[in-house]
């Protein structure tokens, strides 16, 4: 299986952030396709699609503040799922609140990154994600 071809699932409701994230990741010349879920329910909807045979993502970039079902709930369901709990979930959010950080780690997120405002810093973050989660890290399939 070619891991690099597995998609990155970006769960983000703001189109600007979607665009900027895509641009930041594209800057790293990442080959993996990027799939976008615009709210919590859509993100959880992917579980059924994976069951149906679609490829599971190499990493999920999850915003916490989402319409319909919030990010922490999405995280909880993913990490409690018997089959897909091993998919790395990187929380990528504006919140730097301790309680959000603590709750996210308690629910099993693999990394918690505060979205920087400055685009240059954002580019650095995207680079880190690509290097660690897409190139170095190996997850159990």
């Amino acid at each position, binding site marked *: 299986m070619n891991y690099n071809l597995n998609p990155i699932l970006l769960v983000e409701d703001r189109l600007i952030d979607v665009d900027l994230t895509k*641009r930041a990741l594209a800057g790293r010349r990442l080959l993996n396709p990027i799939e976008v879920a615009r709210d919590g329910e859509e993100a959880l909807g992917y579980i059924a699609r994976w069951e149906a045979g679609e490829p599971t993502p190499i990493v999920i970039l999850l915003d916490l503040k989402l319409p319909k079902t919030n990010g922490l709930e999405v995280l909880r369901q993913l990490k409690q799922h018997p089959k897909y709990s091993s998919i790395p979930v990187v929380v990528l959010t504006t919140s730097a609140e301790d309680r959000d950080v603590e709750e996210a780690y308690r629910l099993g997120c693999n990394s918690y990154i505060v979205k920087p*405002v*400055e685009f240059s810093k954002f580019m650095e973050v995207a680079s880190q994600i690509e290097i660690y989660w897409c190139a170095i890290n190996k997850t159990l399939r």
Partner: protein
Amino acid sequence: MKQPEVSAARELLRDIGSLTLLLFLALLWAGVLSAQTKNAGKAVLVIYWDSKDFPGNVGFDQAFQAGLKNYQGGPIEYYAEYLDSNRFTGENQLELFRDYLRQKYAERKIDVVVVNPDPPLDFVLKYRTELFPNVPIVFLAVRQPPPAQLSAGAGITGLVLSSTHKETLDLALRLQPDIEQVFVISGTPDRDKRYEEKAHRALEGYPRIKINYLTDLPLDEVIARTQNLPERSILFWFWQQSADDHGRIVKSPETLGLLAKTSRHPIYAMNSAYVGHGALGGYVVDSGSNGDKIAQIVLKIFNGVRPQDLPVERAPSSPMFDWRELQRWGIDERRLPPGTVVSFRQFTFWERYKWRIVGVIALFLLQTSFIGVLLVERGRRRRAKESLDQLNAQLEQRIEVRTAALDRKSRELESFAYSVAHDLKAPLRGIDGYSRLLLDEHAKTLNDEGRSFLKTIQSSTEEMSQLIDDLLEYSRIERREMKQDHVELRSLVTTVVAQRRREAGNCQIDLAMNVNRASVIADSNGLVQSLRNYIDNAIKFTHGVPEPKIEVGARETSNSVVLWVRDNGIGFDMKYRDKIFEIFQRLNPGEDFPGTGIGLAVVRKSMERMGGHAWAESQPGKGATFYLEISKSSPEAPVDELQP
């Protein structure tokens, strides 16, 4: 040489003897003078009948002597003699008594002779010329001497003991209306029946009542007779003296006592001497009253009044009864005439202790009422306390509810601020991101001014981002849970200083540290943040100062540690020392010293939350020192107790 000395001694002795004789004579003369002075008083002789212990004599004697004490004219010599003719009968005895008195009082001047009752009066009248020829006589007797005798010599006056038979019988009939017979008991040594005759005269005019006389009977017979009297009878006791089996004279009161013991009928008497010896009572002449009255007459004579000028009066009489006899015969005390003297009253427990009992009961009631009042008061106080407690509980509950509501509101506000701050960041990211992309990818299509505008947009975005971060930090202090713990100050300061030194590495600042090992009670996150803000502040305001220098130090007080950050920066005017700790307050334009005006506000708030204190001292142009005061920890103190 010896002869003249002896002669001188003899002369001396003779002189002493003469002096002694003179002294003796002088003393004797003084004694005579003293005796003459004594004789200047008055002397009275009372001749009683019977003996000293006869009840009538005792009562009379006491009252008479008391009455004499009212005399103002000097001392009174009082003599008492007893003509015991009822025991020592016969003319011979009278003569012996006469001789005895004559010899006894030969050298004494008697001013008044009192005789009580008839036998002494008769005796004195008989021997007056021999015994007391020129002495006034005052008598208390049944029989009044004839007028010729009254005026003879120094004169005679006195009181006549008139009969109270009639008054007594009238009173007896009022008390016992069903009386049918009266038995009059009397007896004299002479058996002359004079008392019977007197009674006979007095008790005439009662056709319904049969009057019987038991006169001059032996004691046994009197007792036997009185035990078998018909129903509805009463006895009248006058005077009865008897001899017992051994020939001993049993006197009148004693005889009455023996008779009364066995009598089945009440005994009325006409002399107070018998009340108390078994007589029920009656209209009596009272020996005490008579004694007092006779004393008054004697005093008048002492004061110069002639007996002839004092008319003979009737001895006073009044109703007197024995309470015990009233009880014995079932006679109601309330039926007695007003003014009746009731003697020998035996008080019941209630009568005797009435006022004490009333007092005790009153005291008891008073005490009871006091206790009652106290109990009521205690009850009221308890109820008041209960209602106060209830009110307090309600108040506390209300405070809890209000506090909870306030906490909720506060949390809502914080949550609101937090959400707003986060949401503000998202569009900022867009502005920054696209302006950056514009600059990177379309720089060629822009002129210099366009590129400058984009840079301004970027720096403004950065500033806005910082402001939002600081605001979030400020609001986070309230929301974050304070974790008070023992913090080792030196290592904490070392870490922070090293970090700041590294970050400010390119600024060429001399950042020195001088902190001893000390442990404080603090929230380490809050303390780190406060210290960092102080150092950042110092770095900022030493910018542009030649040889910028920052020193971090600490000193210990008795129960706290004061941490300070000193710089040689631009300083500030002390009038702003409080203002600089308020949020959004800045003393310098943002262009010169960029900042949000939140850093020091975060420090003060953080210190307040951990029970510490933050302040600053400065002079414009001479640098500033910022202080933090934190409680010192003692190793024994449990951390929980130190929670602010």
